[in-house]
């Protein structure tokens, strides 16, 4: 009767109010059989990491359209490590300039998905990342 589900937190840090992209992704992940915890707008990094801990998610998807990603994402990683959640996969979606993508990946972001991304690519990326993470260890 054992049944594993990939659990994903979709959060919108920062102060912009554009959540359409986050909702589209949440729905696509649901349709791919994942359990998506959707936390809504204007989340602080502290709120996001606390929710990720309580919900024991495999993946955090951050939707950022405000341009504040180089401030918000490092803070999320700092808090994740402090809580012992360094193995959680972090994805970033939204408007991210090309120059910042490399910097985000350097921080530990698993993938950056910009406008026009096919949701199937996001689903495939999550499945692969979760599978390769849980294969050798937990």
């Amino acid at each position, binding site marked *: 009767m054992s049944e*594993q589900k990939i659990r994903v937190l979709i959060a919108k840090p920062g102060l912009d109010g554009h959540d359409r992209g986050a909702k589209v992704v949440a729905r696509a992940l649901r349709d791919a059989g994942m359990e998506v915890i959707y936390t809504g707008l204007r989340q602080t990094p502290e709120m996001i990491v*606390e929710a990720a801990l309580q919900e024991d998610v495999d993946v955090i998807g951050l939707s950022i359209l405000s341009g504040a990603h180089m401030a918000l994402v490092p803070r999320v990683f700092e808090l994740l490590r402090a809580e012992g959640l360094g193995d959680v996969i972090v994805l970033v979606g939204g408007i991210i300039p090309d120059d910042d993508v490399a910097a985000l990946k350097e921080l530990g972001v698993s993938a950056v998905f910009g406008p026009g991304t096919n949701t199937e690519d996001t689903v495939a990326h999550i499945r692969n990342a979760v599978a390769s993470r849980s294969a050798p260890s937990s």
Partner: protein
Amino acid sequence: MTRRSAEDWVGDVLAGDRRALARLITRVENRTPDSHAALAALYPHTGRAYVVGITGAPGTGKSTVVNALTRTLRDRGQTVGVIAVDPTSPFSGGAVLGDRIRMVDLAGDRGVFIRSMANRGSLGGLAATTGDVARVLDAAGFDVVLIETVGAGQSEVDIARMAYTTIVVDAPGMGDDVQAIKAGILEIADILVVNKADRPGAENTVRALRAMLELGHRLRSSLHHGELLLAQPEPDAPAYDFWQVPIVKTVATEHTGLDALADAITQHRAYLDESGLLVERQRAGLEAELAARLREALLARLVHDRTPETLEDVIARVVARQLDPGSAVRALLDGSA
């Protein structure tokens, strides 16, 4: 990192480690084999939390009431574990769990732990493992465990067997008087909440609910063995009277009426304690759970013991009208099928 089994987390959960708590809940939800031993180890530490159920139709404001009620209970010094159940998509098996959107006031408070659960196809308003997850939160030391069901209609009444106090949330404009006298979800209420009470029609909703309660006033009943037994008042009944279901008006978004709701929970708890019904409810709930688990285990064992061909053959004979369903079951049970 080596893989730790759920059993290793038991000590950490009892010591209040939130990460261990979250990871153990995942194992329990997934029903991994190691979670069974962990639940067995935690069981002696359970039975201390007060379990409150919150149910009601979609859109009545259950999550907002949970948010505001939790805030009020925290102000009164109680720690709170919240389980918020949402439906799993029957098509994909996935779910969008959105109850946390309404619970932002609880962020940053270490006396609160919120867990979203998908019902994973279970009917009745809860997930099959919600009771076990509630026990894990109980063992972790939370004073109150609040369980919010999926948006429920008229038959999602499982929560009444699990919770000691069941709150049914209604709101203006959700239905007429006939909805209010239908059997089902309103009958399980220990406390009725009319949320969004600042909206037009709130008084009509209160009136319809009060009329419904008065219809059933002379025969209060208690849930026992999953059936309703009519309780008879003793001639020399002690000081307590039969529980009168209160109707509490709230505007949860404004945190209005929540003190009255918290007081109603305290009064209902005192009533259950003094009347001895708390012990009776716990016993009835555990009996119902044992019966449900036994049913599931026996079915699994039977299906495991018979070959798929046998089952197919029986189904084919029932479909062909050669064997009636009752005889088919008897044949499967005694092995003659």
